């Protein structure tokens, strides 16, 4: 009987739930806080990633002073290539790009050769050619009489040309209301591709 009682007490104790201290008060629990966002990043480092890369113009429209004693004449061209690097430098290349226009029924041509290196900045709407840092670019001028002259494009540290632009996917447009310049570009795989 004693043995049975002892056994019973032992088993009853073993069969009871283990005790735990009372639960903590939930209100004291820390909750996540909204940490201030890091940054901002130095804007000098930030360039529009759409603009970065290499491009080729497919349609450009210029208003060019061809004759010294005449007004601006519209020209069209395509095939110039641009590279915009993330460090704010870039290069424009022309390998025989032909600009065509007409004056009094005669065809006018301008043929570009060479490279123009520049610096640039941009935000999401404007593209600024800050300076022409180096150039071996030249333009040859032709009309119905033939070759008129070839003129170099010199480096211009103070160039500061501000254009509007749009960039979406593989296409870009650039325009300047003041100079009536308009262009459409397509992306090439020469630079900036992953």
């Amino acid at each position, binding site marked *: 009987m004693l043995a049975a009682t002892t056994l019973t007490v032992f088993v009853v104790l073993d069969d009871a739930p283990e005790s735990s201290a009372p639960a*903590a008060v939930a209100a004291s629990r*820390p909750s996540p806080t909204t940490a201030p966002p890091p940054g901002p990043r130095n804007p000098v480092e930030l360039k529009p990633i759409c603009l970065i890369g290499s491009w080729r113009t497919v349609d450009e429209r210029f208003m060019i002073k061809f004759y010294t004693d005449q007004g601006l004449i519209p020209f069209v061209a395509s095939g110039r290539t641009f590279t915009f690097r993330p460090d704010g430098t870039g290069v424009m290349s022309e390998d025989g790009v032909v600009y065509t226009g007409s004056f009094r029924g005669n065809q006018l041509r301008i043929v570009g050769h060479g490279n123009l290196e520049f610096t640039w900045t941009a935000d999401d709407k404007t593209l600024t050619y800050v300076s022409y840092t180096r150039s071996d670019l030249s333009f040859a001028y032709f009309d119905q009489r033939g070759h008129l002259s070839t003129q170099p494009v010199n480096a211009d540290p103070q160039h500061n040309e501000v254009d509007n632009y749009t960039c979406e996917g593989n296409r870009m447009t650039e325009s300047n209301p003041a100079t009536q310049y308009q262009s459409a570009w397509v992306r090439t795989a020469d630079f900036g591709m992953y």
Partner: protein
Amino acid sequence: MAARIATLGVTAAALLLAVPPPVAAQPSSPEELAAAVARPAVVLIQVSWRGWVRDRRTGEVFGGNPGYHVTVTCTGTVISPDGYVATASHCVHTGAMGGSAVLFDAAATDLARVGRVTDPARARALLAEHAVAEGAKADSAVDRQIQVRFGDDIAPATVANVVAPDQGDVAVLKVPRDRLPAVAIRPDPAPVGTPILAIGYPGSVEEAGDRPEPSTKNGQISAQRTHDEHPFYEFSAAATHGMSGGPVVDMQGRVVGLISRGTPGETQSFNLATAAATLLDVVRDKEINAEQGAHDRNYRSGLDRYYAGDYDGSVEFLDAVLAAAPEHEQAAAYRKLAVERGGSVGSGNPLLLVFLFLSAGIGLLAGGLGLAVLRLHRRALLSTMDTPPFGFPLPAQVSEGPTEVTSDAPTVRNSGPDPAPPVPPRPDPSP
């Protein structure tokens, strides 16, 4: 008369013990019990990454002015009630296989949006090789915020210890919570063929919703592997994004490993889990006490009793769990089921045991009393009989031995029904 009293006493006790228990809610499979044991310790982890990606070749910085802000989900496994949560380190590690990879993916998506990606895989590979994820200043650390979700409660977490994803893929987080439901870690390697469950929260933050539920997939250990001297298990259960860090448990609900990653080029049936041995190394390295608490053991006892049909006992143990951990959702759920099946508060085993004990005692007492009366009656008869010269041998003493004392009285033993409580059998723990 005394013999009848004794008989009635013993019979009453026997009848009490013979009352059939309610039909037990047996688990439909070993997996059901394993899931019930382990799921309370499975938590949703949200990791928010904020930073920029810089290509070291060109200096190009991706992320714009605000930087990238990406939140990913993983799964965690509570391994200590004191707020320690194990997960896969690639969920929280800042390196190229962790948070940096998340930001690289964001940059690759950004680049693809603007037409600068020819092949997404190549883009990610190039970024992984040439880029760095960083904070607002070059080479500064990215911002990382980890939150662990326990039902409606969301707790901030810090990294207590971590090994790189390619060095074992284990991290242990610390959250400012206690009495969390924790799961046991299996100390020995699980043999190939061991049935397992892989538990985790699949999908994205958006898919998780307000009340995310973990998914439980069954399978088995397919192979034991080693990567750079770190043990992994290949397992056949399905696993997908978001389940990383979730437990792979055996049929006792013990952690065998943590879901790590899929096998490249293989189907979903070839997933890898970091072996529990690596987790134990990480835990020991920081002297973290990865042991279950009393409420975990009570929860297990409550489950065992529930599945054994001891609903009163189940309610009792689960009440103890809820007293210590009121937010233990599974304990509340199983308690509700136990109550629906007839379990009630305060009618658990202890009272039943006392009643049985008293009944048995009364039975024994009555039996003994009856025997004593019979013996006195017999002695009275003997005193009036003619006796041989040397008298009759005395019958055996009732109170001195376990043997039967009379041939005409009801058989009475001094060891009545075992008043110990009917402990329900535990489910077979073997895999």
